[in-house]
């Protein structure tokens, strides 16, 4: 996937909702799959991604080097069972930041056109 590494950041944008969910969670630290879903639920915006949808995105993002798989390790909240963890790569962080700026710009534009009150942010 050498080609993908040379992809300009903008070529990843806009991210799919599930991809942004993943990057948002992983930006805060390593997570396993259910952790990402719980984070998305906690954000409470839309329905959290399906498990299958999430893992297809995780695999795709691994191939695009946006995230990395960490060594499986015991998860305290799963009764000490071993879990697959994922972490964000520097490229993933840059892409997530670019997506956040893009969304912020959209939000400003929405305010300018009166769709969104200034207090909403």
């Amino acid at each position, binding site marked *: 996937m050498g080609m993908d590494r040379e992809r300009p950041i903008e070529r990843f944008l806009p991210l799919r909702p599930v991809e942004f969910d993943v990057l948002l969670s992983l930006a805060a630290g390593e997570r*396993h*799959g*259910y952790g990402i*879903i719980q984070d998305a639920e906690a954000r409470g915006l839309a329905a959290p991604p*399906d*498990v*299958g*949808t*999430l*893992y*297809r995105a*995780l*695999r*795709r993002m691994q*191939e695009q080097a946006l995230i990395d798989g960490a060594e499986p390790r015991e998860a305290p909240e*799963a*009764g*000490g*069972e*071993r*879990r*697959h963890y994922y972490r964000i790569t520097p490229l993933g962080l840059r892409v997530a930041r670019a997506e956040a700026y893009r969304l912020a710009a959209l939000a400003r534009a929405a305010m300018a056109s009166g769709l969104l009150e200034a207090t909403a942010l």
Partner: protein
Amino acid sequence: MSTRIMPHDMHGRPLDGPAAGETRLVRASDRLLRLLLRLYPEDFRQDMGEAIVETYRDRCRDAVRRGGLPTLAGVWFSAVGDSVRNGLGERARPSISWRRTGNWGRDAERTIRRLVRAPLFTLSMIATLTIGLGAFAVVFAVVQKVLLAPLPYERPEDLYFVWRDYSTIMDLKRGSLAGTDVTALATSGGPIMDVAAISRSQRTLARANVPPTDAAPEEIPLFVTTPNIFKILGVRPMLGRSFAPAEVGPGRTPVVVLGHDLWQRRFAGDRTVVGTDVLLNDIAYKVIGVLPPDVRFLKHSGLGPPESAEAYVTHTVDLATTNPGAGSYAGLLRARPGSSPQAVAAAVGTVGRRVDERDHGSRGIALHPVELIPDLVANVRPALLVLAAAGALLVLVLAVNMATLLLVRASERDREFAISNALGANRSALVRATLLEAMLLGIVGGACGALLAVWGTRALVALAPENLPRRETIAIDWPIALVVVGTGALLGLLAGMLPAGWATQARLSTLLRNAAVRGGGGQGRMRRAMVVVQVALSVVLLSAGGLVVRSFSHLLRVEPGFDAENMLTMRVPVPTARYTGDTLANQLHDRLQRELAAIPGVTSVGAASLLPLANDGNQTRVTFPGAPGNKGDEEHDAPLVDYLSTRPGYFETLGIRVAAGRPFGPTRTPGLREAVIDQALADQFYPGGNAVGARIRFGDDTLTVVGVVGHARMYDVHQDGRMQLYLRNEDYTYHTLQWALRSDRPPATLVQDVRATVQRIDPGLALAQVRPMSEVVDEALRQPRLSAVLLSAFSIGALLLAAMGLYGVVAGSVNRRRHEMAVRLALGADHRGVLRLMLGEGVRLVLLGLVIGVPGVWAAGRLIDGVLVGVSPLDPLTLVAVVGGLALVAAVACYVPARRVGGIEPAQSLREG
């Protein structure tokens, strides 16, 4: 002592209480999830499967804690949806990862690349499939469109034709109905919804109030019908309206509905023609409507093929007042929706018995309905079924051929397979790849075949008889193309199964062993078995083809009783409105005959109410009072004969042999009604000869036989019809006659002069059906010709495929046993002996195939017996020729590769080995 088995969690810690229940549920979830994971492609499953199960486990555990079993069930339910959607979604996206295995798109891509790398194999395979499936597609299209497709009417399954069955009193099962029969049927109710009475007639069409150049008269066939016909068919005019219920019977404005073809051809699609008048036999008819293009209604007839017409008018008589003894109409019946054919037959039968009692003094004249499609295709059905069977057989041969080629290919790759297997390759992946390759070839071949068949059907329609029912609908459309492509795919799958099986069995050990001894192994056995099957199938197809070709060549040689060469025929309709009475008509006929005979090159002119092969006839009963052949049995002594009204010079012009007495002279003998009878009639009543001078009762008249002639066939080229009686047209005047001109120049060159002559005599006369008699004969031979062409093409194709298979086996065997042959040669065997050894293998396969084919040949003979003329289905000459031909081709196919053993240099071969 008893041990209580405690539940344990996955880390071996004993569980108890609610936690144990929760764990059981979570484990059940795990099992479900692992099952669902199979929906994903294998590589995805390997990468992400464990993580997905873990995540679902967390989810399920949460669900159980939050809401118990119902909440968990919700999670399971959504897991099923999730896996189906994403699993299949992932499979369908080959481009996401190049490294993917176990992915359909990836498999297809690999297969295509493999096929492109072997262009010779791929192209020859696709070419074979294209031709084979193309032939199949053509046959399938014909069978589907002619035998199976529904007619383009509303609920066509509820339509029937009704006929009078006279079989208790004479040999006629399909007599026309009287008008009173139709009225009785139409008012009987029950399952009978409505009935139309239809007759067909030829009228001379001219346009009123148009320039003379557009007004040239033309004879057209039209249906004279009750006004309900379009309601019964469920057909609406495209322009204008259909008949009003009251527009029938005498004393009203005559109205006509034009067929679409006539409207296009004669009125150039002019929409303003509706409301104007046209002339039919010089009577003005108001055009009230034009039918849409797809309405091509055919009136089935008692004798001969169904007939079409170009326009519709209504009866000028009141059907209820017509003579119940006359049979003039075909009855088209619409049954109430959902009535079974048996119920309709019973209802029609009941009406028939009532009518028989009322009108015929209970002589047992019955009415019976026939269904439209079976009746329409009755004549062509046997020939088409033979074609369908031949097409199916060809596809089978093709499948075997394809399997053979794939097997050869698989054997060339057996090293690859064996190594892959030894390296632990996924066996199902190998099977899948092989099947996919075969299926892909089948699909491409099917698509090319369907494309080829687009032209093929056009060629076939050109070859097909004019009266082949629904001829104009024969074409390849999307559903048929889809069936052909599907057949190709199925064929590929079937043919791919053998090599796929072979691929999974390839073991490194076998490969090494085979390499050591260079023996055949299982693959060689399979190939030989397939050659045997091919030979067996080919001999079946070849014998069927051979028989049909023999039958056709017999047809070409039969003597129909007249000479069709150098003869132009035509019909000159004479309107009774202007030529009222027989005298005017006879004067016109005299003049026509005289002036047509004066055309340069014309050597004689004759005319009759019907010409040979008209596939039509007028029948009556005649008796020969006092003839020695009478037996006192009414059926024998009062036979139903075809009678023809002729002009002098008819027999001379047609080349009909005069066996005794004389033909009709140029002028009538005063006080004598002359008759000429055919040989069969003379033989029946005057077995010792001396029929000349005999008296015949013909209706109320007495005729005197002046001559006996050979039978000129009226219906089929190959068999006699009813016995024939010829009358003088001056005695029994038909206004409209069929004319025949014998000439010493090609008939086609006469047409111009004939037209000019007729126009000079009366510009209002139309000419119809102007064509050489040889064309009429050709037309009658079209169906057997088509069968002969298609079946011989199929059987030659099968023979070539079998020869290819045989060649391949012998060539492979020569290659494989090169070493062995070299040893034999080195030990003193001569080349001739070695050659014989190699040939022996091929010969054994051919003989075995022939033996296996014998029951097939017998069955095929039974199947085609119905379409054979003058040839027995087990005709020894044909069978010997087929076996001989097959043996010859097989010998060549064996000898050519086997000859290579001659080139074996023992010393060199052994060194190489």
